[in-house]
């Protein structure tokens, strides 16, 4: 039997009378690369916000590693191993690559330890760890440059590395490939496969079907706040409901350039 790292059970959420999520339930298998797809406005980002604790669901429960996350603030969810990146890059534009990545370590740092004056000289500073991680993914430090001056594709990767510094077991990625060109998307895919190989479960939202097809093995499809498909990605294109949701645009589901 497979082990589930994340279980969503009957999640409902509405904003001002509009039902954005309606009884959404699905599980994410440990070690899988799970995609969450659906047309715009289907509620994918809202579901991400519920999972990461930005919104509270009206109904339903999020279980992470078998534990109910109700009442756990987003800051503490990171602590438990649930990290995320954002649709719009949320790096600190005026800090360096290294500093941005090191910010990702803050969820693991005790409040009192932050005041150690000579910490930057010691091994516990986390600098070595950050440099190692960046190197292992082949990302240059771009010394002396602020993040805002770097190309979009690199910033996307840095954001993922920053999320990894929290040592997550589940990584939520909101549209990681959005705004990237084909070459950059391929690089990101290989990069995320490498992340997955290191034992981190991925749950990602994306519109780029070739990208999703070539990266993920599981997929959940949402439409108008409801789950309409949940299963292996290989059987997705045979599902009638999904095809209807995408209104005959089969090409959207079939990757050709992946």
């Amino acid at each position, binding site marked *: 039997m497979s082990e589930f790292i994340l279980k969503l059970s009957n999640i409902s959420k509405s904003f001002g009378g509009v039902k954005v999520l309606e009884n959404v339930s699905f599980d994410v298998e440990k070690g899988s690369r799970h995609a969450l797809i659906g047309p715009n406005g289907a509620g994918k980002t809202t579901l991400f916000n519920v999972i990461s604790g930005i919104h509270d669901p009206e109904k339903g429960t999020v279980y992470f590693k078998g534990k109910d996350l109700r009442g756990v603030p987003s800051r503490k969810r990171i602590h438990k191993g649930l990290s995320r990146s954002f649709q719009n890059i949320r790096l600190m534009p005026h800090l360096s690559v290294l500093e941005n990545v090191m*910010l990702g370590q803050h969820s693991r740092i005790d409040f009192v330890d932050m005041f150690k004056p000579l910490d*930057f000289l010691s091994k516990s500073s986390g600098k070595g760890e950050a440099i190692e991680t960046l190197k292992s993914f082949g990302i240059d430090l771009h010394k002396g440059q602020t993040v805002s001056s770097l190309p979009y594709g690199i910033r996307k990767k840095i954001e993922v590395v920053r999320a990894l510094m*929290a040592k997550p077991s589940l990584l939520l990625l909101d549209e990681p490939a959005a705004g990237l060109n084909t070459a950059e998307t391929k690089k990101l895919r290989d990069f995320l496969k490498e992340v997955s190989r290191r034992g981190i479960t991925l749950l990602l939202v994306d519109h780029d079907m070739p990208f999703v097809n070539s990266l993920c093995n599981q997929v959940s499809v949402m439409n108008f706040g409801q789950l309409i498909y949940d299963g292996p990605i290989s059987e997705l294109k045979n599902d009638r409901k999904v095809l209807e949701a995408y209104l005959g645009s089969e090409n959207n589901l079939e990757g050709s350039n992946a």
Partner: protein
Amino acid sequence: MFFEQVLQQIINGLMLGSIYISVAVAFTLAIGILNFLNFTIPALYMFAGMVGWSLSHYGLPFGLSGPIKWWFALFIGINCAILASLLVERFTYRYFKMKHGDATEHAIPLVSSLGFLLIFEYLILIAHGSDTRGFSTPFTNLDWRVAGFIISIPQLISLILSILIVAALSYLLIRTKVGRALRAIAENPDAATLMGIDVDRIVPVVFILIGFLCGVSASIFAINYHEVSPYMGDHVGTKAIAAMVIGGLGSVWGAIAGGLIVGLSETLSIYFFGASSAQITVWSLLLLLVVFKPTGLFGHNAIGKGKF
């Protein structure tokens, strides 16, 4: 003779600037990290000085002790300023963060901090009246005469101390983890929260630093000018704001330059045009500067966005 007198004024101006440096840095921290123009700062400065004077003159309240040694009285004064600063944090910044999710989109915290300024001032007025009080320390007439110029040794030490404190602060912001967290909050408090940074516990650190800087600056003033008054904050407050803007919002080192420039222009203006001209000179200089360089001398376009 004339040049020597002007040079002496320049020396005095730089020494006066040392008072403004710490207060200007306190302003620049609040606006640089929290985007909050904290008007309580002059009151915290005055509060530290008056508490120090009261303790060294009367001793602890309710007759708990006789007059306390001047240095210990000032030490307690600094700590009182820190506590008062935390009180301001609780009822301006944190209150709005809890109620509206964002403290700085509103002008209300600024107005609330003005309220605290007046409340603190009038509490002191009720307690001690409006008179200027003499603050006695053993350091009188400790002058150093070099080539005909008079340099007050306590003032020189104060200037060096001010710069050292700012250097330490700059080090804290650049080198330590709490500094990195503060700079992250300056750039984007929401994203910082999602990084796992405990913003609610780190923001009070800024207010502790503000209280400390005000307290130190007031102590330096009391030691060098041998007096304190309930209005001492008003004089320093406006000059420190000018110093902050001249140096560049959010720039800690800019605040040093701004403080020294304001101190210099004040003493030179008084020397050449009389006592009433000081404010006109300082603020005209500021207005001219912002026309030609709106960011101040060391400021950046992104005002207060993690540039230290």
